[in-house]
């Protein structure tokens, strides 16, 4: 019998799950090495690039394991009789791919970014950074609640320490605390959700949970707990408050990782619980998730439009994107609950594709703000401007991210938006008439959010990179980015372009996930008339070909440029700006970030908490003060905080600090217990 050499080779290769475990161990070792080395050169030149290499291996392993059989493993770690169960199925592999692919860019960038950091802190940061990566990979692979919670908490703690890298600043500590608090409120909900799902059997493996047939009531409780718990991590309204605080506080690569990858662990969790662990889906879960997602998206984008801090702006934009992803998941649940599996597959593909896109685009933009911050030391949009002249390479790479995030063809943000809108257009097939009517309104809300995202991105890019520098001193000493930073950014920008221009290739891989979750794929129809054509339902119904679009625009540009050169002349001269002939022009006459957001503030005044201090007309030194606050702080967070304080004050009355009173308490408790047990 002749053996196929390829088959023997494949049997010799380690299983994807082993590779993934190997990468996790490798990252942990790298972290330890960083902690021990304590040498800035070693850490930035070797450890971070090595981490990127690990991420690349992980991404390739995950990509190759999509479509192959489910891998499971049991590790004899943890508590006695409670081993770690691991599992690498299509859903895990997809998110592993996301993690690995985005982490390659972020780690490469970090190698350049952290160069100037002091050594002691850098070793610690390198340690936390790699623990964070490993913990996220572990979350995706966990197959029992115990390991899941351990990994989840490791992820939360390591990211908390990363956020508070700059812990000498009081604001950073405050932001870190808020993040830790909300993360733990969420973790409690997740724990309870697992508790409900194990159905009193005491078996916390996911396999047991899949078997436990919950009643509709308990399944709903589980779903709501999961939505709350994972929503706290993802930043779904009203649990979003930590995002705009934590992101500006964290170093940029950490922000990129948290926004690009960590938020997706929550998306993973919601998908895992609602599609895999629970065996029933009710339509109102989907309607709830859809509504919540759209409200979150609109809220996020409106607040992004009025921000003046570039990282806060991106944080709010992340809230928006998470909202869009959640809306896609909600739509998928609605379709799935009515057994419209093909439509569910489309909505789910849109949500997954957007998750992947967002990891690349937001990673790219957060890293871009990191470079701006490093070069200028300024996060406030009001002091930046004109950086395209000083940092042209950075400006070009960030432009890719900006166009992608604005949802413009032929880049990747548009593909997921297109898929999601197509899914909305399919909704008339639903048997539920009220739901049918709501869905056009939902589609309108989504379109509005997408259009506003373009507004936000024009503001972000225009104020930072274009125009004249608003403060001359800020841009004087600016240099363009170094080679490591450039490599990281190019990787992510390339991802944005490839995901945008060759969507079918990626969708064919996402199909394995939708096959696992809803038993249907887009594959048969998605590439019906060739691999370049994205036709999710039927070619007559809808088709999109980004490659042709791109090529046609390029041909148009070249044709116009050639014709102009050929038939006319290319003469050009420079002169001062015209600006309608106004002689007195200064950089301060450009729009500030506040100015650019003013129309949004004016139109949607109702949703913002605005305080303005307008100076007296006779004031010699007028000072204008305007502030836009999040009303949910006053409506939701502060009442809860006050209630907690009141309760603690009541509890505090029991404490007197005198030993005899405490002894009395013990005595009374003992008596009460005796009376109770008797």
């Amino acid at each position, binding site marked *: 019998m002749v053996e196929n050499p390829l088959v023997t080779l494949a049997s010799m290769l380690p299983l994807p799950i082993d590779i993934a475990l190997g990468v996790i161990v490798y990252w942990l070792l790298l972290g330890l090495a960083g902690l021990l080395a304590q040498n800035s050169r070693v850490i930035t030149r070797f450890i971070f690039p090595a981490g990127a290499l690990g991420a690349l291996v992980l991404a390739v392993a995950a990509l190759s394991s999509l479509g192959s059989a489910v891998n499971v493993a049991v590790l004899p770690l943890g508590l006695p009789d409670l081993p770690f169960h691991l599992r690498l199925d299509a859903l895990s592999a997809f998110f592993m791919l996301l993690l690995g692919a985005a982490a390659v860019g972020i780690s490469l960038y970090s190698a350049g970014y952290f160069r100037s950091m002091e050594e002691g802190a850098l070793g610690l940061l390198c340690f936390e950074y790699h623990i964070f990566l490993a913990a996220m990979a572990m979350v995706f692979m966990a197959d029992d609640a115990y390991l899941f919670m351990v990994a989840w908490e490791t992820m939360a703690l390591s990211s908390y320490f990363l956020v508070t890298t700059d812990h000498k600043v009081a604001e950073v500590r405050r932001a870190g605390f808020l993040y830790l608090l909300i993360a733990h409120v969420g973790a409690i909900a997740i724990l309870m959700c697992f508790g409900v799902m194990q159905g009193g059997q005491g078996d916390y493996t996911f396999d047991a949970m899949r078997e436990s047939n919950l009643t509709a009531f308990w399944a709903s409780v589980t779903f709501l707990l999961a939505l709350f718990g994972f929503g706290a991590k993802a930043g779904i309204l009203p649990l979003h408050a930590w995002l705009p605080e934590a992101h500006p506080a964290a170093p940029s690569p950490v922000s990129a990782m948290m926004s690009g990858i960590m938020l997706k662990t929550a998306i993973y969790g919601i998908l895992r619980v609602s599609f895999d662990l629970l065996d029933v889906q009710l339509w109102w879960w989907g309607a709830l998730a859809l509504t919540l997602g759209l409200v979150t998206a609109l809220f996020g984008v409106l607040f992004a439009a009025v921000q003046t801090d570039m990282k806060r702006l991106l944080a709010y934009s992340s809230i928006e994107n998470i909202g869009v992803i959640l809306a896609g998941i909600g739509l998928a649940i609605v379709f799935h609950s009515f057994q419209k599996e093909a439509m569910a597959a489309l909505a789910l593909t849109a949500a997954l594709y957007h998750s992947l896109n967002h990891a690349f685009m937001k990673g790219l933009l957060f890293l871009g703000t990191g470079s701006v911050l490093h070069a200028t030391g300024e996060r406030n949009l009001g002091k930046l401007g004109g950086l395209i002249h000083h940092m042209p390479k950075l400006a070009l790479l960030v432009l890719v991210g900006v166009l992608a995030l604005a949802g413009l063809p032929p880049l990747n943000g*548009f593909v997921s938006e297109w898929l999601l809108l197509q899914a909305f257009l399919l909704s008339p097939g639903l048997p539920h008439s009220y739901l049918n009517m709501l869905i056009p309104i939902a589609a309108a809300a989504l379109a509005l959010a997408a259009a506003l995202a*373009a507004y936000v*991105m024009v503001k972000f890019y225009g104020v930072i990179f274009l125009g004249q520098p608003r403060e001359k001193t800020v841009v004087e000493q600016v240099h363009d980015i170094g080679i490591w930073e450039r490599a990281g950014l190019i990787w992510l920008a390339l991802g944005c372009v490839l995901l945008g221009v060759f969507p079918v290739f990626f969708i064919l891989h996402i199909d394995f996930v939708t096959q696992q979750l809803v038993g249907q794929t887009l594959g048969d129809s998605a590439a019906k008339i060739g691999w370049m054509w994205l036709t999710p339902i039927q070619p*007559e119904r809808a088709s*999109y070909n980004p490659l042709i679009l791109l090529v046609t625009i390029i041909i148009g540009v070249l044709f116009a440029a050639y014709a102009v050169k050929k038939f*006319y002349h290319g003469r050009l001269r*420079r002169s*001062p700006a015209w600006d309608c002939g106004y002689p007195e022009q200064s*950089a301060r006459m450009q729009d500030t970030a506040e100015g650019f957001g003013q129309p949004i503030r004016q139109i949607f005044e109702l949703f913002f908490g605005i305080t303005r201090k307008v100076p007296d007309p006779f004031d010699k030194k007028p000072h204008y003060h305007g502030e836009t606050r999040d009303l949910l702080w006053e409506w939701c967070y502060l009442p809860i905080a006050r209630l907690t304080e009141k309760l603690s004050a009541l509890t505090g009355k029991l404490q007197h600090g005198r030993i005899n009173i405490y002894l009395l308490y013990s005595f009374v408790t003992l008596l009460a217990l005796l009376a109770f047990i008797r």
Partner: protein
Amino acid sequence: MNGILIQLLQNALVVLIAPLLLGWINQCRAWLQNRSGAGVLQPYRNLIKLFHKDAVLAHNASPLFRFTPYILFASMWLAASLVPVIATDLPLSPAVDVIALVGIFALARVFISLAAMDVGTSFGTLGARREMLVGFLAEPALLMVFFTAAMISQSTSLVTIVETLAHKQFMIYPSLAFAAVAFAMVLLAENARIPVDNPATHLELTMIHEAMILEYSARHLALVEWASALKLLAYFTIGFALFLPWGIAETGNMSALPLALIALFLKLATAGAGLALLETVSAKMRIFRVPEFMGTAFLLAVLGMLIHFLLGS
């Protein structure tokens, strides 16, 4: 083969007649205002004049500023070539459906706004901000208009929409009526026409489009103006495709082509005169009223979609 020929014909046609449409509208407006007008060919003369001039760039202009006119021209040309105007047999059309078409308009809008912010003048940023303000309300409204048509024809492909609507018997669809009003409002706003913007004025604090292109000159300005003309033509033809699709040559029917051309010119002439009339009888509104205007368009478009659900037509 026929398809490619028709596509090339349409590409050439739209790029050549776009300035003519602008000239016709201006001429009609002149007549309505009791002026003799500069003739329908004036936009061509303007373009030639601009191409001959030396380009003047501000000191602070970046490569993005120089590159933008080409992007604008190419994307608007693509948009205008995609809409089935004379025949439905367009090989390019399946590549870009209505959602992607809205995306191309958004791409052009983002680029022109960025270019406007590039030189860093007060008028430029003001124009960019206002353009994005108009755009973020116009874009979803346009999308909703398209969705209404897409719901009726079960497709987001423009060719299929046109073929379906052209075969329906002549009757007024309530949903399409709402969509048509919304579309007309979007058309006015997106093409910088009265009452949202005034294409004929510069020295006004309320300008939007003109404020953005103040710093452009010579060939760059010519390309921007040509792109605007193409955009207007694209909007007109989208309107015909959605609401007056009759007379178009269907797949494989070359003999209907001359008739389709005549039909197109008749439609363009009527619609252009209508636009001129509308612009003559209405006044420009305050900039703060524009969000209300656009909000109305958005609501009408959503209503159109809801009515489609309620009445099923």
